[in-house]
């Protein structure tokens, strides 16, 4: 187990190094000068050059990569070109929005998908199964930004039950902050819940066809007890994979939803930073997201081992 973990950590580190190189080189070739962007239409070339020097943009790419990558190891992501503040702090602020949003949406998705998937699998072929599966098909097909638009129209503008967007910050109170995340979470959770419910259902049906299910039934277990005690845990392996993927997706992929609800999250930070050519910020956030994905994959692997004794070594 320890050798396995060490090996995984090594692969993980290698992935991150390669990723950092890819990110740096890809982003550095982006045309567009952050200094020119900041200074606008009337600035003279000398002024732009002065700003470039001040931002350290005149140094060689290699030197900047070294600074940036070694800085990251110390938790120092550098200073944003346009915001002129330490990136670590900016990211930390955004994470307090993105992470709870992702967790909230994922929790919601699981809370909906688990009973839906179980119900559908246990009533396979029945009217309930057909209905649940029909809903999930639609859930997958609905673009989440469109769904978000409709949610805002109904709950914020018409009914005024919930805020239309924005994030008051956690210091405004947990309740207030969570209220601001309800609609975005629902919009994010719908397709994820639909996918999860389908995966769970088919995983359950697969496991229900296994020999040990027959063994359990031959012991005298009822179909329901068999489902709960034997099928569910075995069906968790594909489900865990999907949950892991979904978490990474929700953390990074909420850009569009963050735009609809003008939430100050990581995705929006990337979007804005690309627009303003604040490249160090883009690089740092992308690396952070890559790190998160890699870590989540790793954790999912550990979760497999927790679920499945065959993988514990």
């Amino acid at each position: 187990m320890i050798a396995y973990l060490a090996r995984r950590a090594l692969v993980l580190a290698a992935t991150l190094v390669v990723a950092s190189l890819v990110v740096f080189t890809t982003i550095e070739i982006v045309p567009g000068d952050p200094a020119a962007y900041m200074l606008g239409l009337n600035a003279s070339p000398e002024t732009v050059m002065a700003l470039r020097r001040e931002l350290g943009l005149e140094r060689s790419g290699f030197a900047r990569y070294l600074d940036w990558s070694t800085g990251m190891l110390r938790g120092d992501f550098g200073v944003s070109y346009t915001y002129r503040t330490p990136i670590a702090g900016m990211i930390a602020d955004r994470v307090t929005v993105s992470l709870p949003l992702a967790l909230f949406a994922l929790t919601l998705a699981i809370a909906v998908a688990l009973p839906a998937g179980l119900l559908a699998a246990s009533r396979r072929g029945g009217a309930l199964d057909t209905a649940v599966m029909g809903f999930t098909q639609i859930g997958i097909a609905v673009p989440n930004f469109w769904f978000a638009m409709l949610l805002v129209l109904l709950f914020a503008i018409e009914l005024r039950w919930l805020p239309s967007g924005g994030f008051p910050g956690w210091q405004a109170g947990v309740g207030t902050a969570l209220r601001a995340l309800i609609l975005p979470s629902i919009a994010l959770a719908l397709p994820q819940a639909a996918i999860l419910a389908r995966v769970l259902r088919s995983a359950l049906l697969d496991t229900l066809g296994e020999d040990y299910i027959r063994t359990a039934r031959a012991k005298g277990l009822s179909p329901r007890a068999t489902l709960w005690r034997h099928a569910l845990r075995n069906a968790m392996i594909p489900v865990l994979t999907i949950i892991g993927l979904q978490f990474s997706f929700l953390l990074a992929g909420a850009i569009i939803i963050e735009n609809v609800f003008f939430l100050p999250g990581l995705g929006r930070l990337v979007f804005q930073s690309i627009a303003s050519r604040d490249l160090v910020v883009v690089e740092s956030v992308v690396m952070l997201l890559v790190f998160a994905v890699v870590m989540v994959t790793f954790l999912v692997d550990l979760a497999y081992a927790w679920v499945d004794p065959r993988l514990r070594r």
Partner: protein
Amino acid sequence: MRLRSLIPGALLVLLVVVAATVSIVWTPYDITRLVIADRLQPPSATHWLGTDQYGRDIVSMLMIGARTSLVVALVAVGIGAGLGVPLGLLAAARRGTLVDEAIMRMNDLVFAFPALVIAIMITAVYGAGAVNAIIAIGIFNVPVFARLVRGAALSLWTREFVLAARVAGKGTARISFEHVLPNLASLLVVQATIQFSLGILAEAGLAYVGLGASPPTPSWGRMLAESQTLVSIAPHVALFPGLAIVGAVLGLNLLGDALRDWLDPRLRHAR
């Protein structure tokens, strides 16, 4: 039993494909002419689904938008399968070697990147436009196909008919294409359908944030983005492109499900 989803799925997909094909030669109205005076008209006998903010006929817009969606998604799937399938076959044929390892690590690397962020980066580097949207979506299809093909090919390589071909002196490349690939076809068809529908969603998402096909080429995602502020004035402008996306994706997913059930003999017998 789920073959029931074949008919609605096939009908929806057919509708979209026919609309897109017909739009090449004919649309009810010319969408390159703007008639500002006629804008935001509700559905009527003259404009079945009404007009948009520039007075263009929404039916015509949706038809050409279908073409954009289909082309972008199809080519993106093509890129994904075109690169991913050979890579997956190669990795499986050279299982356990450095080649295999390199391909799989590359896949992991791509998977480690948040797709949408990278898509935005790509379009930021090379500018917005259909081609770059295709590349951005296509790149993330490559590891999907590579991984799928490798996994399935690995199990085929242990099958006795592949061993028999090796005993018949056939080389790995030849076996990969003669025996492995044809036996993966049904799997690939199903996966391609899924990626196709995901591609349509992705194109809509990119177009929605302004990174899809350039105007004046209509695109469902951009139609939605542009109609956003009009939802409360002229709901039909935002409703129909959304429904078009839902319909196309739903159709492809239903078709994919039906194909999987039909192609998977295990399921065919069980039901």
